[in-house]
């Protein structure tokens, strides 16, 4: 009697352990809320996640054919487990060449140096090409800045504001117009209706 009781108790304990493992390890990974604390999470050295092959749909921003506005285009972006890492993947995709017939608002050769979060602010540190390769003009500057800001803030509800840094530094402007000294909220007045 005592022996069968012990077996039953052991089985119950094993079941409990299984439940705990399922609840706290497996499910969070699958349905991924961010396990890391939000404050200043570096992502530069993040190990490739085992879920590399998974992709999500993200809304990215390109210059419309009239050159006046940005258009929203849905693109596949690699899935990441943390907000900061996901933001990084989105910006990297935004920096790639634009799909036809659109053009990128960002100078070719611009790379993402680092991306970190402080609360709900994202700091996107871009290589100096973003400024040195910029053709000038208020319009191009507005479109370049809001392509990045909107791409991050639209796709990640946890991020409300985005500040662009250049070459690791806070800057006044990219090309002499738009004030980049503080984080910017997404701005949809520069968006034209989606083409498809």
């Amino acid at each position: 009697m005592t022996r069968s009781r012990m077996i039953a108790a052991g089985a119950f304990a094993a079941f409990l352990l299984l439940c705990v493992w399922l609840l706290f390890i497996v499910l969070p990974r699958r349905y991924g809320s961010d396990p890391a604390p939000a404050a200043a999470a570096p992502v530069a050295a993040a190990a490739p996640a085992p879920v590399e092959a998974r992709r999500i749909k993200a809304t990215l921003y390109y210059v419309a054919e009239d050159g006046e506005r940005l258009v929203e285009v849905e693109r596949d972006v690699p899935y990441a487990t943390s907000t900061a890492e996901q933001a990084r993947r989105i910006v990297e995709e935004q920096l790639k060449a634009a799909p036809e017939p659109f053009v990128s608002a960002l100078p070719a050769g611009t790379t993402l140096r680092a991306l970190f979060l402080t609360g709900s602010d994202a700091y996107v540190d871009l290589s100096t090409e973003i400024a040195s390769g910029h053709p000038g003009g208020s319009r191009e500057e507005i479109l370049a800045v809001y392509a990045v800001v909107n791409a991050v803030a639209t796709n990640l509800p946890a991020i409300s504001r985005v500040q662009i840094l250049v070459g690791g530094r806070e800057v006044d402007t990219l090309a002499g117009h738009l004030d980049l000294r503080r984080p910017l909220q997404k701005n949809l007045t520069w968006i034209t209706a989606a083409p498809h």
Partner: protein
Amino acid sequence: MFFRSLFALAVLATLQPAAPPRSDAAAYTLLSREGRRTLPVRLAGSVEMAALDDIAKLLNITVREDAGGLVLSLPSGQNVVLSTSQGLASAGGRVISLPAAPTRDGRAWFVPIEAVGRAIAPAYGTKLELRKPSRLIILGDLRVPQVVARHETTGSTARVTVDIQPPTAHTVAQDAKTFTVRFEADALDAQLPGAVGRELVSAIRAGEGAAEVAVDLGPRFGSFRSAEQPGERGATRLVIDIFSPSGEAPPPPPPVEPLPLPEFAPAGAVRTIVIDPGHGGDERGARGQAGTLEKDITLSVARRLKTAIEGRLGIRTILTRDADRTITLDERTAVANNNKADLFISLHANASGRTAAAGAEVFYLSLAEYGEEAARIARSESDAVPVFGGGTREIEVILWDMAQARHIERSAELAKVIEAAFREKLPTSPRGVQQAPLRVLVGANMPAVLVEMGFLTNAPEERALSGDARQADIVQVLYDAVVRFREARR
């Protein structure tokens, strides 16, 4: 934590180049019975700072440093205390705001030049006046009238107009090459065009004496006639008409209507306009396919616009740069703020990766990006601050960083007036008025707009913008807009 400190370092690194104060601001002149002496100033950001020791020597003040700040003992027996940690002073129990806190360089203290006008002058006993736009400090009961001279040539006649405020007795003397207007005054607060380089008049400049204006005559000078008229607001206007030799063209009768509109405008009107030719120097801005540079177009249009507004409206017009040189966005805004401009117009030319994009656009600041602080400034006129010794007092506390917030409605009006004037005459973008968080506008303490005159990346527009005809049209459009804005304001 590491990244946060890295970020802090990065921010520090960007701040560092601004740290060594530069000395490229023009010195002030102190006028007194003893003569003229200079007070050098240097720029820290947009604030002009003078060495406290220099001020003390010029004004016979003794300075003592104690825990409460810098204590200035004036000859009147009164004390002025300057806070060393923030831009505040106290004199006679009143708090006075200053644009910056004193800074220390080695053993010397530097204080904003405004300390002379706002903090020291009211307690000084003797009359003491700081005239920032003309870079003068006037000590004692001196007569220093404002003298503004303008020049206009039509055919064989040149007209030199000299406005004098307040009216001051004067004589006109002529020798072979020069007229000299001699004023019964101790000094002049003069704005003179300098070299003009015309055949009838070659220059209008300061004369040899302290209160003289000299008009240098050109090679075709024949005869002249001078007349005095009452100007507006109690000013006197001296008009000198200069004719080429008789026989060549008879002197025309004096026109019934004086040529330019008289302008010592009533308070609240447009007295000073600052025009900012965008970019310059190493920073060339946008570039067209044919090689046209934004910095050249903006300077060329700005110079023409200055001539048009000054010549036809008589409104003092200042350019933030009058050469191909690099200046920061803060310096541009500071020119407008320091000259107490009533309007600030920044001129630019646009660029787009799409060559089809064309047409002018007018921007004014959007406040949304600057958060609750900006919204609060936009709502409130002034703030009550505690006064040393108890109680509160209403004073103007403006965060210079966001001075534009208080003028946003007027800026929107100005943008609309300019856009409408463009749309009547010139290619204008379908969305002509836009809002954006533009860096050059946010610190401007007056209605301010940024005008994108057209796209250099659009080939026909590039050709037009680099030509005389379009530039003249743009000047006319902006001139019309200034007139309409001024009329609407009256």
